[in-house]
């Protein structure tokens, strides 16, 4: 599970994430939704321990992200916005390499590679170089890499951005199946319909602050919105109005 406690991040004195708190339970999918520059990626990177918080902390899979980053990494699967795969290696070689970095090896790793490639529909491309993959195939492979070590927690940064309908569908299925497997899934997205469909709870983040957190229905009800998109627009416009009043 994930438990975020007053997490803050500043870049050169400018606050980007302003003391946010929320949680993700086992077997739950939480969507972090917000406009560009809201602090979504920064939050996810802090939780994945690739960025150190300025203040506050979080417990991820039972480990403190500031005190125990290596243990956190061993129990978290991360999908960044850029898949970051080795183009000259095949699908299996990429997975094998990352599996080895996670301390796996031998027949168990080979079985896991076959299992993941079959699960994501990439079994036929096992020995194909990633250079030859479509964007959708790369994203699926990056998802397989994120769970190669069977983590309890998944952190996915805009997992469906730029994908066609079928590839997006495969990613959504992956998230839902991960939930069924008991994983805690936190993902960021711009796509509100997708978030509404997949998430058990959503956190609307604007200007580095969480404005609303709850089930999509609760978030809508709180501001009298008919859809999640309306609720999202409400918070973004409200915050923009506050900012312009402050500036004015």
């Amino acid at each position, binding site marked *: 599970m994930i438990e975020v406690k007053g997490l803050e991040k500043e870049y050169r004195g400018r606050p980007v994430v302003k003391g946010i708190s929320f949680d993700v339970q086992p077997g739950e999918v939480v969507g972090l939704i917000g406009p560009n520059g809201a602090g979504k990626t920064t939050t996810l990177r802090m939780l*994945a*321990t*690739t960025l150190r918080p300025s203040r506050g902390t979080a417990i991820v899979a039972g480990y403190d992200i500031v005190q125990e980053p*290596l*243990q956190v*990494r*061993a129990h*978290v699967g*991360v999908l*960044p916005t*850029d898949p*970051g795969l*080795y183009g*000259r*290696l095949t699908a299996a*070689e990429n997975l*094998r*390499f*990352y599996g*080895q*970095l*996670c*301390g796996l*090896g031998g027949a168990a790793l080979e079985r896991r590679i076959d299992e993941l490639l079959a699960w994501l529909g990439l079994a036929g491309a096992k020995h194909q*170089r990633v250079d030859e993959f479509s964007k959708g195939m790369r994203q699926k492979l990056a998802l397989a890499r994120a769970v190669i070590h069977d983590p309890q927690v998944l952190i996915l940064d805009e997992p469906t951005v730029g994908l066609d309908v079928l590839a997006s569908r495969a990613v959504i299925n992956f998230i839902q199946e991960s939930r069924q497997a008991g994983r805690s899934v936190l993902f960021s997205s711009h796509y509100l319909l997708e978030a509404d469909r997949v998430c058990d709870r959503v956190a609307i983040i604007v200007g580095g602050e969480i404005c609303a957190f709850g089930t999509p229905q609760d978030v809508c009800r709180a501001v009298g919105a008919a859809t999640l998109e309306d609720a999202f627009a409400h918070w973004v416009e409200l915050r923009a109005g506050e900012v312009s009043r402050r500036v004015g």
Partner: protein
Amino acid sequence: MLAGIWAVTGMALRIFWRDKHALFWGVAFPLMLMGLIGTVFGNADNLTLRTAVVLPQPSHPLADGILQALRSVAALEVTVEEEASAVAALRRGERSLVVVLPGEEAVRALAGGAAAAPVAGPAPVRVYYDESRMQVAQAGLGVIRAVVGEMNQTITQRRDVLAVEAAGVAAEPLSMFDFLLPGILAMALMQSGLMGVSAVLTGYRERLLLKRVLATPFPPAAFLAGLIARFTLTNMMQGLIVVTVGVLLFGARVVGSYLDLLALMLLGSVAFLSIGFAISSASKTAEAANTLGSAVAFPMMFLSGTFWPQELIPEGLRPLVQYLPLTPLVEAMRAVVLRGESLAAHAGGLLYLGAWALAAAVVAVWRFRWE
């Protein structure tokens, strides 16, 4: 941990093997260069250098010793002549080299005699050559330097300079490939470090592959150790291919110890890997790293005696040449390959190269960025 490091090395080796550009620049290019230069400038299979020796008046035992040593080198056809007529013959292309030996006073100082007047530097052995005949100049200067170097070494050990013999000096005619092999070998190591390392590291950084490592439980430093092992292995492999092809295909000879040559390859590899890491740490993009790497590599390639002796480099640039990290590596490799000298004879230069490696490593660690 070790399994993880080996996984990184294996991954990087696999990528190198599948990268046709890296293979071309790392392995084929040095060989092509050696073949091309050796064929164009060294078209004679073996060089016989018609060497005029100008003895001082009056002559002295050391001058006679040097003359005898030069005569013992099969590559040289030695005649004793007057300076003016010998230089004129050189200009007409009738002589390959003119060697003017130092006078008695300078030699007494050189030999450290009690009555010797103090001198500012070693007694000069002036060598005239024709710049338009590159292959002759390169091979000839190599031989003369070898003989004089041997004499110097002996003089510092014994007072009896008359007994000097040109032992250990290339006793057979030199080919252009003998001269080129160590230069090309050193150049290949430098290229791999300066261009190869920086291209790979900045490429990984730009494609966010380094950042991905941070999200795994694998220690980042161990990832870098795996990459260093990959470059060391490929450098050794490239070096062995260059030496093997140079010897078997081009007929180059290695007079000295292959183990010494291997040790030099290892030191050169470490030093230029370290400089390559520093360059990639200081560069934000792959293009910037490539530009910086080229800016550092190309002057060294042409100034450090890779393709021709340093004597051919303009006088004004020579002080700079001595400070380039490639220079001591080329000098030591050439000394081992051509003259069979020991590494101890080049300890100063090799320590200097080691200092470069250390300084570059400090910069690399200080400036390294994962993203």
